């Protein structure tokens, strides 16, 4: 196995060499999606289960397409159609799935640490597709892949992550991944959403929105979850978009070649103005396209051969 662990649960578990191996492998996988016949036999006879305890369009489809382009059999399970609603524990669900001999299980779950329960209990490989506010390692890898494609290197780059850092698994994984690769990372948002001790991850807290936007090479906007409005975290969506949203006015002060990213789904007009989301520097759809390549790479590295 070219990766040390059978599972991908966190970015922290990966060495820089392993991250680079994944990104390099994704490079060669990306071409497959541009072919007329988008399928190679690499994972023929392998079974991949997508076990999604949280709603997801992008990530689940991305894993499904990645598996199918490599000829794996992909099975999707979402909470509404599983035994979860009947009260079965995650461990029991995992063991039952294992009895059907899958090679890899992709899990998304609202509870931090849930993928580890499966990884400890199952011989199959486990990929964490997002667990609570903990980690979303494949998102961070596809973001790193996208930045590397555009900028060529991480050395000397500054990346600003703006929005709800406290509740964001994307932010946690991205800070870990980008700092490992040599970039500087700044975070900004309402201080109700910036967790204490975030510096321990290697990220700096930007002093202002202006600083976060102006003095940076990549701006990563995070989705604001509408339901958090009721949790005392900010007064209104209007105020949020005024002070923490990315609009054309703010963008004027950014570097000319700044890259704008967003893990999706986008709340247009809240954290990002439509003109910015659709503008020339926005990489939002490229991120999605690269997601397939990165996930193909991971499936191949974890269960290929």
């Amino acid at each position, binding site marked *: 196995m070219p990766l040390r662990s059978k599972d991908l649960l966190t970015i922290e578990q990966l060495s820089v060499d392993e991250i680079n191996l994944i990104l390099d492998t994704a490079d060669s996988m990306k071409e497959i999606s541009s072919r007329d016949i988008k399928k190679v036999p690499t994972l023929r006879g392998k079974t991949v289960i997508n076990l999604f305890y949280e709603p997801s369009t992008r990530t689940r489809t991305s894993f499904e397409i990645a598996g199918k382009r490599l000829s794996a059999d992909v099975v999707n399970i979402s909470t509404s159609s599983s035994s979860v609603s009947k009260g079965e524990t*995650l461990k029991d669900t995992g063991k039952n799935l294992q009895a059907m001999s899958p090679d890899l299980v992709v899990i998304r779950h609202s509870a931090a*640490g849930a993928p580890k329960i499966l990884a400890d209990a199952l011989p199959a490989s486990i990929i964490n597709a997002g667990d609570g506010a903990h980690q979303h390692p494949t998102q961070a890898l596809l973001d790193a892949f996208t930045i590397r494609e555009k900028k060529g290197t991480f050395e000397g780059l500054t990346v600003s992550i703006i929005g709800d850092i406290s509740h964001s698994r994307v932010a946690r994984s991205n800070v870990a991944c980008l700092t490992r690769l040599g970039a500087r990372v700044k975070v900004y948002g309402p201080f109700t959403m910036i967790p204490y*001790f975030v510096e321990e991850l290697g990220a700096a807290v930007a002093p202002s929105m202006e600083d976060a936007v102006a003095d940076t090479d990549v701006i990563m906007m995070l989705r604001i979850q509408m339901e958090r409005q009721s949790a005392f975290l900010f007064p209104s969506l209007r105020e949020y978009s005024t002070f923490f949203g990315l609009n054309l006015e703010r963008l004027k002060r950014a570097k000319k070649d700044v890259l704008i990213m967003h893990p999706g789904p986008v709340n247009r007009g809240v954290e990002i103005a439509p003109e910015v989301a659709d503008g020339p520097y926005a990489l939002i759809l490229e991120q999605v396209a690269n997601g397939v390549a990165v996930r193909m790479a991971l499936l191949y590295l974890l269960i290929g051969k």
Partner: protein
Amino acid sequence: MLLIRGGRVIDPQNGVDEQLSLFVKDGKIVDLFPDAGQHKHNLAGARIINAEGCLVVPGLIDMHVHLREPGHEYKETIETGCRAAAAGGFTSVACMPNTSPVNDNQAVTEYILDRAAKSGCVNVYPVGAITAGLKGEFLAPMGELREAGAVAVSDDGKTVKNSELMRRAMEYAKNFSLPVICHCEDTDLVGNGAMNEGCTSMRIGLKGIPNAAEDIIVAREVSLSELTGCRVHIAHVSTKGSVDIIREAKSRGVNVTAETAPHYFTLSDESLETFDTHFKVNPPLRSARDVQSIKKGLKENVIDVIATDHAPHSSLEKDVEFDYAASGIVGLETALPLALRLVTEGVLTMRSLIEKCTVHPAQILGIPKGTLGRGCDADITIIDPSAAGRVDVSRFKSKSRNSPFNGWEVEGRARYTIVKGRVVEEGCAPG
């Protein structure tokens, strides 16, 4: 009849710390005398216990346990909880009222005492509820609870949110000389927090509970104690802020005492890195800095008592995602060796440690225990402080296994646990 000889007898209540023999008859301590000394007793037929190399101390008291009966017998019963207590060297336990039904009336208190008399091998002291159903709405009938045998009141597991109600509870408890045991957590600040708010919670994405959630309510209970003159006991202190607030309150003469549990002076929140639900407990394991403050608080007698908050849970509650897991650690069978580490580390003297597990809880609860005085109940624990062993949860007498200390190499254990002159446990866990 029992003759315990050759041991070092430590009885802080009576200022005793020397090599003595102890003679027990009819469930009472009859006499203490030098091993080789003269005495007037007829020892014929007495069982002789050789306590060489051991400490002979008043039976340990755990003033904070959950025995789960009635209502949650699949986790623990009064019988198994008492056996766990005996195995850990405890001769008396005070059990919290969050059973089902709640111990907020005479019938439940009597039921517990009745079950304890029939199936319990150690002394059981029920703690009644402060508010009916632990709901924080109306006072529980404290007079009736006292008459039935409750030794204190507490809504343990919950804070009485309404400060006016807590004030009245303290005033009313004074009528019946009941101490009020306070579980201190600001419910709103805790929210759905799953662990201590700190570097680890930030890293692993679990929702944090700030120290302030505890400190704020400790400060409130101190203020209310000052207002009402009620005896207030702060349960399971976990933060530096609480220690500082209680220290300051005591220096002003406020009628407040406090306890902490072994996990709060042994473990910090870094242990949660692996999402192991056995480390999930309420209040949560705090930072290494808080652990140091708890030790300092013990050393300076700001914290009067070591109590386990023995909280049995089955795998149904623990073998699940961290967010969904129940909080709680079984403590009775690991408390003694963990507490003895405080002596090894120089935090406490042996005498001070014994005080915190005997005299102090007995005084707070107003029970005639925690002493080896002549004529007193022969509740005695014989401790071998150097017996080494490995904690093995599969050998616990408790029905539950939810201990984060499984596999730990520890030193010190109870060799004999004696309740009213009867040896209820020999050999004793762990190892």
